[in-house]
């Protein structure tokens, strides 16, 4: 047993337990929602789900008590802990989906659960209105919970994740004021800000004309950049400009760095305006909006705002069919989906911080080409970026590109044309959850089991920034190797 739990493996029960607890709470909450809102025919299933949630919480709490003898957390170990937590959370969710029996095959269940928990938003459900309230709630609650987890990791709040977070682009914030000095305060502040945004969105949607359940679910979906909808036409179902503007503002906020919002709340406007990433993010939103709105796309202002913010924040909510617009508008949206949200946000994609770094690196290389003797450093927000960190950024760019290329080939959806395939692959790796023509995948084709499983793995890679998944898989094989009986040299003697 000691050998089994040596090193990183010994640290895994804690995050796995936390994942089970989080999954248990989410499933229990959604089943309670179902017990209140759904009709009596679902009552038995809801009770089973409640039981599943409670058992998960109990097992999770028990696992949290398992103490490792070796408390040193390596960088790879921190990443594996994050992956373990995520796997545990999904295990509970998948079990709940299976219990409900409302989704089709096992591959459908995996796809739906992974899509929700990775804040992607792709779905194979033709009409979400046919699903029970509990399941509709679970589909939006899952990304909200994992979104919180992403925020805690990316802002360096979870102590175990700090080592891993160094590889994420959030580290340029080193040396700048953090969200709080102690972990507990940071957790409270992060949860508070995230909760505040969600609450504001509930109020906004309700005032704009949504009913309470829709306002709540769309708020959870918007704040977490999950993009799961209660309707097949997403926001387009309401055909309400006020709702579209609320959604656009909410998605833009959700795709922004929470730390920058914290600075704004604290009145540190100097830091806010100094943020290169924020300036880039706002510029891209404005340029994208103008380009989409005035390129003959035929989209209204609110539709254009929803389209651009949905793609940049990687949410995936939609209010119109973007394919009806100009080719240029679609090209803009495709590029926006590739870039993605700000670091330190719930959003995914390649991230604005990395784009800024790469742009500055290209500029520096260009200057060096013109003046070979010149030595210069890359600065972001006035802080010098370490060369090692830059190397990691462009190393990540190539990993991201290879992942995208691999997904495009492996997804294998014969009914798709080239653009739909590329758009689907980009939507998976960037966790956008919508095709470039503004449609859901279910409106196009019936995906094969293979495509769903490949897509699920791709969404996971995209959401966890590739490294953690690959390192965990590598670590798992090393761990298996350690279990093998080894030949002892000189044993015969």
């Amino acid at each position, binding site marked *: 047993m000691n050998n089994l739990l040596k090193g990183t493996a010994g640290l895994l029960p804690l995050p796995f337990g936390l994942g089970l607890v989080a999954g248990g709470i989410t499933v229990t909450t959604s089943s309670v929602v179902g017990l209140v809102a759904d009709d009596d025919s679902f009552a038995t299933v809801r009770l089973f789900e409640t039981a599943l949630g409670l058992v998960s919480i109990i097992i999770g709490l028990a696992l949290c008590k398992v103490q490792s003898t070796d408390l040193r957390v*390596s*960088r*790879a170990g921190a*990443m594996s802990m994050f992956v373990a937590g995520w796997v545990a959370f999904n295990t509970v969710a998948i079990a709940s989906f299976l219990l409900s029996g409302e989704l089709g095959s096992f591959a459908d269940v995996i796809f739906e659960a992974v899509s929700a928990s990775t804040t992607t938003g792709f779905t194979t459900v033709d009409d979400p209105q046919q699903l029970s309230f509990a399941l509709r709630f679970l589909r939006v609650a899952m990304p909200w919970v994992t979104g919180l987890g992403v925020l805690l990791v990316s802002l360096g709040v979870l102590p175990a994740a700090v080592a891993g977070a*160094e*590889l994420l682009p959030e580290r340029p914030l080193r040396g700048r004021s953090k969200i709080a000095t102690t972990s507990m305060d940071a957790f409270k502040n992060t949860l508070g800000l995230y909760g505040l945004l969600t609450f504001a969105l509930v109020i906004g949607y309700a005032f704009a004309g949504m009913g309470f359940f829709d306002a709540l679910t769309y708020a959870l979906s918007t704040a977490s950049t999950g993009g799961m909808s209660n309707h097949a036409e997403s926001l387009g179902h309401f055909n309400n400009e006020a709702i579209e503007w609320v959604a656009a503002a909410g998605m833009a906020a959700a795709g922004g760095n929470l730390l920058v919002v914290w600075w704004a709340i604290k009145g540190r406007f100097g830091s806010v305006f100094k943020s290169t990433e924020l300036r880039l993010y706002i510029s891209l939103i404005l340029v994208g909006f103008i380009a989409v709105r005035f*390129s003959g796309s035929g989209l209204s202002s609110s539709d254009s705002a929803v389209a651009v913010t949905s793609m940049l924040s990687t949410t995936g909510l939609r209010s119109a069919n973007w394919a009806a617009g100009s*080719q*240029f508008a*679609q*090209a*803009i949206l*495709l*590029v926006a989906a*590739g870039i993605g949200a700000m670091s330190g946000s719930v959003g995914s994609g390649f991230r604005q911080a990395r784009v800024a770094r*790469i742009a500055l*690196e*290209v500029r520096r*290389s*260009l200057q060096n*080409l*013109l003046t*070979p003797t010149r030595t210069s450093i890359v600065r972001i927000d006035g802080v010098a970026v370490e060369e*090692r960190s830059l*190397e*990691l950024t*462009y*190393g*990540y*760019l*190539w*990993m991201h*590109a*290879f992942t995208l*290329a691999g997904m*495009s*080939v492996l*997804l*294998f*959806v*014969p009914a*798709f*044309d*080239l*653009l*739909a*395939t*590329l758009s689907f692959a980009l939507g998976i790796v960037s966790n956008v959850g919508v095709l470039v023509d503004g449609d859901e995948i279910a409106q196009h084709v019936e995906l094969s089991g293979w495509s769903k499983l490949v897509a699920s793995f791709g969404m996971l890679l995209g959401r966890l920034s590739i*490294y953690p998944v*690959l*390192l965990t898989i*590598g670590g798992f094989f090393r761990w298996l190797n350690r279990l093998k009986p080894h030949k002892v040299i000189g044993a015969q003697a």
Partner: protein
Amino acid sequence: MLLHRSEQKNPAFATGSRRWHATVTHIAGLALLSISPGLVISAIVELVGGGDAAGMLAITAVIFAVLGAAMWRGTQLGDLTLRTVFAAVGWSWLLVSVLGALPFVLARTFQREGASRWVELGDAVFESVSGYTCTGSTVLTTLPDLGGDDTQVGRGILFYRQLTQWYGGMGFVQLVITVLPTLGSKAIGFMGAESPGPTADRLSPHAADTAKILWKLYVGGTAAMAVAFTAAGMNWWDAITHSLTTAATGGFSTYNDSIGEFDSLPIEIVAQIAMLFGGTNWALHYLFLTKRRTVHKEDHEFRAYIAMYVAATLAISLILSTGGEVDNFGTALRTASFNVASMASSTGFGNAQGAGSPGDFVLWSATPLVIMLLLMVIGGMSGSTAGGTKVIRTRVLIAISHRTLAVARQPRVIVPVKLGGDVVKERVVHRVSFFMMAYVALVVGGFLLVTALGGELEASLAGVVGSLGNMGPAFGAAGPTATFLDAFPAPARMVLALLMLIGRLELFAVLLMFALPRQVARRAKPHKHTF
């Protein structure tokens, strides 16, 4: 020598400016001069073929010769810094590509109903740039196999069109080096600026000798291909014209259906082998002939190149045959292997017998098209006549990704980037990364610009990738059985032509050719004196 007033005031500018102009003009003049014999041959071919553009070709040959001689004889090589060398190569290519449109303009090759003279001029420039950069995208719709009364392109013009690619394949600046003994050690700089790939191979202590060896090999290879095509069933005219563009991995054909016109398996096999030969590092061919018979097998880039070809062929064949897109596996294999070789070598030949036939790959399902798009990005080997970002750069990127993962696992670990057991210098790694980042930026920027100018999404994406990689056909409305005329509006075609030039010169030369005049102009500005 009398100096301009600004030069008298500012000696630094005077020397810098004169030297810059001198070097660029000298090299560009020689490049123009090197094209004129080709134009003379084309004029003779036109005359023999009974066409009416022989005079136009002869006039252009004279213009190239006189202008080239004047530029060459009127200047001397000056400053030979890295920047000047790159700028000289860049400006030479721009000048030759643009002036190379002259025979098409004079012969009114692109005259068509409803098109203004400006559009006609633009089309001529597009065709010329596409030719010299070995891209192979075309806007010519009046090739002889169409028949009818509108076959207005004479044999001489067609021959010149094929010849543009042959010149561009090995590079006319490299040709210039062979006759410039004064360059000395700086010649390798010119070769590096023009040669595809991160570094230029040196086959002899003297760079000029290396250039000579490569050109001799190129001529020999072209002749061998012509013989092979003839043996496979082509007539001499077709064999020569197609061997010129196969060796150069250019892809221009004298028929609308390209190689598909012949509907001959032996010709397709010869073309495939020839395309892969052209997409391989020519230095390897030389070493194979002179020193080691196992040199190809030992080269890690060649192994990766062939592995990529085999894997892509098998994958596409399986998808096409199992998906019911073609009748049987044999047809799928024939279609896939040809088109994969065409894309992997950036040649751009097609084997479709008209729209809708198995070789018309725009009708394939998405996965084979994604594979084709990836091949368009990767392209051939460094040191070959092929385009694309090159196999070796992809291998470096994979090695960088592997290193990144290792550093992610153990932050303090030092992992060198290795290829085939050899450590790649960090300077080269950095340059490859910069090149690829700039490539991504160009693809994204070009894609947005071309769609903004009216290009269709799928065609624009493949058009931009194909132009930067000097491929030839794209997807959508610009597929292997179509031209770029209907797929892209005239301004978009100009953007694509610029991308072809950037792709052929692999970015650096184009960057420096525009940066240098700006730098000289900045130096020329009167500076404020603080006291």
